[in-house]
C-alpha cells in the first residue's frame, strides 16, 4: 500500500514573463475596463505601488507584479490557476505587440511526511551524506537540491526543479518542491510574433508545466518509503 499522502498541504503557482512592459498600464481599473476582471474583484484589490517603474497589487487571491522588464502573477491558492491563465491570455491578447523574450511557469507544492525519520530519509536519499559530506562537515543536511532537466515539444526549454525541506512549521516535517519550466522565445521574433508565441505557450504547455512540481513530489514520496 502506498504511504504517499495524496493531498498536498499547500500548492501555489507563479508565472513570470520577461520582456518590455509599461507597469503603469497594469492598474486594476485597466483590467476592469478591458473586462478581464469583475468589479467585485477590483473593489477588494490591495494596491502596494503603481508607477512608471513598478506595479504591485493583489486581488482575488492573486498578486500581480510588474517592472519595466518583468511581469509576474502568482497565487498561493491553486484553485485560481485557471483564472490566472485566462487573465494572462486576455492581457497579452489585448497587449498583442508587447515584446517578450521568455516565460516561466513556476509551480510549488508542499507535502507533509509521516515523521522525522522519513523526512531525513528523503534528504539522505536525494543527497547522500556518507560519501563526501560527513567526512568534512558536522551534521550536513540537505537544504536545497536543484536539478536541471530539458523539456521538448513545440516550446523546448529548460526545467529547474528544487526539493527543499518545508519551512512552514504547520507542514513540518514536510517537503517543498518548486519548479521553473521556461521557454525562451527566438531572438529574431518580432513583438507581435513573440506575444503570439507567448499565448500559444501559455495554452499548450500550461497543464504539463503546472503539474510538474506535484508529479515530482508524488514520485519522491512514492519511491522513498518509511522503513518497516
Amino acid at each position, binding site marked *: 500500500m502506498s504511504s504517499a499522502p495524496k*493531498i*498536498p*498541504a*499547500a500548492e*501555489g503557482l*507563479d508565472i*513570470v*514573463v520577461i520582456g518590455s512592459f509599461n507597469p503603469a498600464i497594469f492598474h486594476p481599473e485597466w483590467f476592469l475596463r478591458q473586462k478581464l476582471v*469583475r468589479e*467585485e474583484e477590483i473593489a477588494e484589490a*490591495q494596491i*502596494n505601488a503603481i508607477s512608471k*517603474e513598478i506595479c*504591485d497589487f*493583489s486581488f482575488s*487571491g*492573486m*498578486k500581480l*507584479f510588474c*517592472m519595466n*522588464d*518583468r511581469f*509576474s502573477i*502568482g*497565487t*498561493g*491558492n*491553486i*484553485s485560481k490557476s485557471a483564472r490566472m491563465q*485566462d487573465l494572462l*491570455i*486576455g492581457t497579452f491578447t489585448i497587449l498583442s505587440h508587447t515584446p517578450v523574450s*521568455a516565460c*516561466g511557469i*513556476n509551480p*510549488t507544492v*508542499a507535502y507533509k511526511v509521516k515523521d522525522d525519520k522519513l523526512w*531525513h530519509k528523503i*534528504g*539522505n536519499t536525494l*543527497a547522500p551524506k556518507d560519501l563526501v559530506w560527513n567526512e568534512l562537515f558536522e*551534521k550536513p*543536511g*540537505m*537544504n*536545497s537540491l*536543484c*536539478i536541471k532537466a530539458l523539456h521538448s515539444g513545440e516550446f523546448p*526549454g529548460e526545467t*529547474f526543479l528544487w526539493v*527543499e*525541506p518545508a*519551512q512552514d*512549521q504547520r507542514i*513540518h*516535517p514536510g*517537503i517543498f518542491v518548486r519548479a*521553473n519550466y*521556461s521557454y*525562451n522565445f527566438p531572438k529574431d521574433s518580432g513583438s507581435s510574433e513573440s506575444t503570439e508565441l507567448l499565448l500559444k505557450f501559455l495554452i499548450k504547455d500550461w497543464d504539463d508545466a503546472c503539474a510538474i512540481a506535484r508529479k515530482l513530489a508524488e514520485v519522491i514520496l512514492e519511491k522513498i518509503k518509511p522503513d518497516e
Partner: protein
Amino acid sequence: MNNTVILGESVSEQPREGAATMSLNPKNPVRWSERIARSGAGFFGKPEARETSMVPPSPQATESTFHHISIPRIRKPSPASKGSYILLKKYSGFVSNRGDQSFTAQLYESSTDYPVVEAEFELEELSPADRELAVDGAALVWTIGYHEEDSRRCESLIYMRRRPGWSSKELGEAEKAAAELTRDIEWK
C-alpha cells in the same frame, strides 16, 4: 553594476522562519539572504532559465550571466490571500445543457478520462457575473478543496472560463489541421 535582483517574495514561496534542513537540526534557522546565496552556484550549466523563476538569480553568478536590473529592495507585501488552500479535486469541462434554474456540465480530470462525468449544478452556485457566462458550450473549471484560515472549511467553486474568442488566424489553422486529419484517415 549591481548584479543582484531582489524582488518581493513570491506569494507561493515558502515561509522562511525556522528554516530546516533534511537530516539536520530542524531548529537551525537559515536567513533568506543565505538561502539566495546557496540557491544556485551554476553547477549545471547556464542558469538563465531561473530568470523566469520567482527566485532571484544567485549573487554568485557572474555579471555576464544575467540581465541586470538595479532596483531598490522591495518590501514583501502582505499575502495575496488569507489562509491556505488545499486542492482536493479539479475538473475541467463545459456546459452541456443550461436550464432556468440549473445547468448540466460534462467534466473530466484529465484529457484522457473517458467516459466523462456529468454533473448538474444550481445556477445559484455561480457568482452573478458567472451566471451570464454559463451558456451551452461554455468552458468551466470545478475545484473542490479545503480553505483554512481560523478553521477549515470545504469549498466547491465553479469558475466559468474567460478566454478571448478564436482569432481568424486560429480558426484558419484549426480548419487546416482538421482538413489534414480528415485527409489522413483511411476509411475501410
